[in-house]
């Protein structure tokens, strides 16, 4: 290209580009006369939401310019419950940012764990004197009003934990209310229809509705686990979970029985279903304890635990060695094969018994 083009064409092209711009509308924003067109989350100044500040001092310590000044005192808060312990709380007295030192890195905003510091798009805070750039809490709080609301979450994004919790609670309440209503309706309709599938379907409560406060342990599970040689801590935890499960199943059965009595429906079916639910309900709790409390499902190899002392499956070992594998690999594979065999044996035994 460059080799074939006439000398000077590059110069003319350059002139062409600049002359084109002469007739274009300039991109200037006439700032003092009209508001500049800023990006919505422009980082103009740092605003303070002082209600959120816990005087943890993280911002002040992280600030590379050391331009954040915080003063506070401790206050004693009376106990929330009768007989509780009095707490101490930090009370913010002074929060100041020296914008003559600030380099607008935003580390303080990033580091604040309680969303007390925010970027505001406000930028018109020039002063005639450098002392005037040290802004106290009041001014920083005023800027809070100019902070735009947080951006929308992406579609399909997980809700923030606190929002999800709140929504969950509301939904629970609604469902409970709906269930009660249905119950009342059922009670009213029962004489006429003599119960039926509608009642059972409408009133079938979800497992989540039944709340059981964990506290006691299931002695049976605990003993079994201790006997198995598990640690005391693990046995206690699993036993606790087992108790909760059992308790839930029991409550549900009671509920069904009640409803069955009231509606005269197919109550006989319900406890079994409830027990089944309890069995494969919480994935997190799935374990021996849960299995013990529920109807046994089809067990898999992974459910069986076999501990070996390094026994190897001689057959596999010999075969691998014959294949020319190294001694180390053959030994480890043979070990795995042994464990697998043992597990299969145990499983067969259980199923047989």
């Amino acid at each position: 290209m460059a080799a074939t083009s006439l000398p000077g064409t590059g110069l003319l092209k350059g002139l062409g580009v600049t002359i084109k711009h002469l007739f274009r509308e300039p991109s200037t924003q006439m700032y003092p006369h009209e508001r500049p067109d800023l990006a919505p989350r422009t980082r103009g100044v740092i605003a303070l939401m002082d209600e959120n500040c816990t005087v943890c001092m993280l911002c002040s310590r992280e600030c590379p310019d050391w331009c954040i000044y915080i003063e506070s005192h401790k206050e004693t808060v009376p106990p929330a419950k009768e007989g509780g312990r009095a707490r101490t709380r930090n009370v913010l007295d002074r929060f100041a940012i020296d914008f003559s030192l600030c380099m607008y890195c935003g580390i303080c905003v990033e580091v604040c764990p309680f969303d007390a510091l925010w970027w505001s798009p406000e930028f018109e805070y020039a002063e005639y004197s450098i002392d005037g750039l040290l802004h106290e809490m009041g001014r920083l709080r005023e800027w809070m009003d100019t902070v735009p609301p947080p951006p929308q979450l992406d579609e399909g994004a997980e809700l923030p934990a606190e929002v999800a919790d709140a929504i969950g609670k509301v939904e629970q309440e609604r469902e409970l209310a709906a269930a009660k209503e249905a119950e009342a309706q059922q009670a009213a309709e029962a004489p006429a229809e003599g119960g039926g599938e509608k009642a059972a379907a409408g009133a079938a409560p979800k497992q989540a509705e039944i709340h059981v406060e964990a506290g006691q342990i299931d002695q049976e599970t605990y003993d079994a686990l201790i006997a198995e040689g598990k640690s005391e801590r693990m046995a206690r935890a699993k036993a606790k979970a087992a108790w909760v499960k059992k308790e839930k199943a029991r409550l549900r059965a009671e509920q069904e029985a009640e409803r069955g009595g009231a509606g005269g429906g197919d109550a006989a079916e319900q406890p079994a279903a409830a027990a089944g639910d309890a069995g494969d309900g919480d994935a997190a709790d799935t374990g021996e304890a849960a299995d013990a409390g529920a109807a046994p499902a089809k067990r898999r190899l992974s459910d069986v635990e076999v501990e070996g002392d390094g026994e190897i499956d001689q057959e596999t070992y010999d075969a691998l060695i014959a294949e020319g594998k190294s001694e180390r690999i053959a030994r480890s594979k043979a070990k795995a094969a042994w464990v697998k065999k043992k597990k299969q044996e145990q499983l067969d035994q259980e199923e047989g018994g």
Partner: protein
Amino acid sequence: MMESASVTAEVIVAQAVSIFDVGDGFVLPVLIKLVFVLALFFVLPLVGGYLEHKAMGRMQARRGPVEAGPFGSLQLVADGIKFIQKEDLIPRAADKWVFAIAPGVALVPAMLIFLVLPFGPGVFALDLELGLFYALAASSVSVLGVLMGGWASANKFSLIAGLRAGAQLIAYELPLILAAIAVAVQAGTLSLVGIVEAQANFLIPGTEINLWFVFPQILGFGIFFVAALAELSRPPFDMPIGDSELVFGYMTEYTGIKYAMYMLTEYAGMISMSALTVVLYLGGWQLLPGVPLPGCEAGGGLFDCSPVGVISGVLITIGKIMALVFVMVWFRVAFPRLREDQLQRISWLVLIPLSLLNLAVITVAKVVF
């Protein structure tokens, strides 16, 4: 001895009559001419500077000055007032006297060129017979001020800039003068008014078509304009200022009114070099080749004009000057600064041989036709 002196006096004495030569006295015309020259010197550079600010701004997607005066037209006046108010700093190690007078040494020759520049029919202070020689000689004195400033600042950047300016002057004075000589040869005179007149009366041999010198000497015109840019240290030949390399070149240590004087020198240089180009190549105050001015009788429609003719002549000249200033600004925006060695190479290996060729061709043509 006496005779030769009187001959010399006759040679440099004014040729055409200026419209400012009123009355028989000596003082009044001189006063009027002084006012005229000073007014031109202080007004035209401001107009050129405003044009530069605005055109450069628009080419860079900006608006240029908008606040001072209507459409920002008084920006340079405001700048001047600001410069006067600024503290006049002189570096401790500086050569104080040289440092102080250097801006003046640069400024005064730039002012003196305006003495001979014809802006319209009779609108000039002096028409020297050696006008072209005088203008080029005066313009090259300005670099002395730059060298002095660069040396006296006691600053390495300034010193390098001053030396660069000296080297640049030596390199580009030659093509500039050689191109101008070709014009003088074709016109047969060194008087600037005479050159304008010669252009108005130049016909293509064997025809009745009138042409300005830019057409037969398009090569010379290009050489003269490029060399003028380099003489003025205008981008892309602004190595003596070179703000990305030399801070601000020879002006680094200057503040306030002295700095303003350097800036005024630069803008006045743009005006006077453009005016010289207009006079040498673009037919002076003629609107189009072969078109006489309204109300002008003599010399191909160029002289003995009515007031309308005088005013339109002046406006035409200034319009042409501003067009050339615009081109200088355009070049400044479009082209990056050359390297120092590229600058020297262009002059010695390209412009000087070409200008010699141009001169030879013009001389032969002049003799043949």
